[in-house]
């Protein structure tokens, strides 16, 4: 399958820079998926979960609080204010990652429905890890 470069930049540096097969981004108008060769576009993102499918079929989830996505045919760059990956190899690490994520989401999402929908997604991402 075709792959493309995917980068997540925060004010404190890069938190993700790798090849991806597909990504799902939380756009303002709803979620959208991007595959290699996607038409160029620039759009705003809102608080939510970014799912990145890598070459080896593994999926990584990263929670963001706000963002701008710049999609071009062979590269996707998203600029975010804050981001927290949901990853870890044991329960302790996962718990810690989840705590960071909750903090990030509670800071930004102003409506409780937004928090709820994001929380649900976080939940399923965590399930995948365990």
């Amino acid at each position: 399958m075709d792959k493309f470069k995917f980068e997540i930049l925060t004010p404190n540096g890069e938190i993700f820079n790798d090849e991806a097969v597909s990504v799902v981004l939380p756009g303002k108008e709803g979620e959208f998926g991007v595959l290699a060769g996607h038409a160029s576009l620039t759009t705003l993102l809102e608080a939510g979960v970014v799912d990145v499918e890598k070459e080896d079929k593994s999926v990584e989830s990263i929670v963001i609080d706000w963002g701008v996505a710049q999609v071009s045919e062979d590269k996707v760059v998203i600029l975010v204010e804050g981001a927290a990956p949901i990853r870890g190899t044991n329960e302790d690490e996962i718990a810690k990652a989840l705590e960071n994520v909750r903090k990030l989401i509670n800071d930004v999402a102003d409506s409780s429905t937004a928090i709820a929908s994001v929380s649900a997604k976080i939940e399923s991402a965590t399930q995948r890890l365990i």
Partner: protein
Amino acid sequence: MANLKDIQRQIKSVSNTQKTTRAMKLVSTAKLRRAEELAKRSRLYAQKMNQVIAEIAGRIKCSKVGGLDNRYFQKIENPKMVDIVFVTADKGLCGGFNIQTIKAVNKLLKEYKEKNVKVRLRGIGKKGIEFFHYNEVEMLDTVVSLSSKPDKERSDDFVMTSIADYKDGKIDALHIVYNGYKNMITQELHVNTILPVDTEAFDCDKIRSSSMLEIEAEDEEKMLGSLVEKYINYNMYYSLIDSVAAEHSARMQAMDTATNNAKEMVKNLNVEFNKARQAAITTELIEIISGVESMK
């Protein structure tokens, strides 16, 4: 020939100064490393952010997307009131670091004065504030201790006033003047025009082929607004980070030069001291010999 005691005292005082400057240099080197790291990490984000904004601005200019007449992107002819934000250090002893920024601000002030444009000066950093106070230049507001410890929240609060006034049409432009970090030994002065977003440099032909802009039509205005706000906030914050890194590199250099100068001075004083001592010995010897001679 100076008194031996005097020279000794001078040597001691100069070498004490040398110790101080060397310590200050070491402190600055350590702080620089941290500040540089932070600036480096943020630079990528700042560049991308500017690129995104430039692209949007360019597209608005070229295609007038949905008849957008967003104030952020409009070039304003004959501005009446502009904001100048300057960033200097809170502390001195860093060579020409602060004075360069002050000079740039003065130049800008003069230019606007000639055009009969009113300027609101907003200061960050004690040294610049002191200078303009002393010269009785009026400032809208001033903030200290922000330039030595950049803080996103405080910087957002500070620049928000300008953004709000720009939106209301109270001011027609916003400039940020600061001395930025280039490498260990050079600083680079930046005079950035943050508002209105510069669309001049953008080539229309290029964008049409490159990409499209997807923004929900209903609240275009609002969304672009929020994006531009983030852009300005981040630019302000990045100016602060860059300025701290530059401050430490400037101080490190100034202190290095001072240490070397002190070393040189001690060396010269030592030569002088030895000469004086030799002269004293010679005089004493002559006295003894002539005493012996006269007794014969």
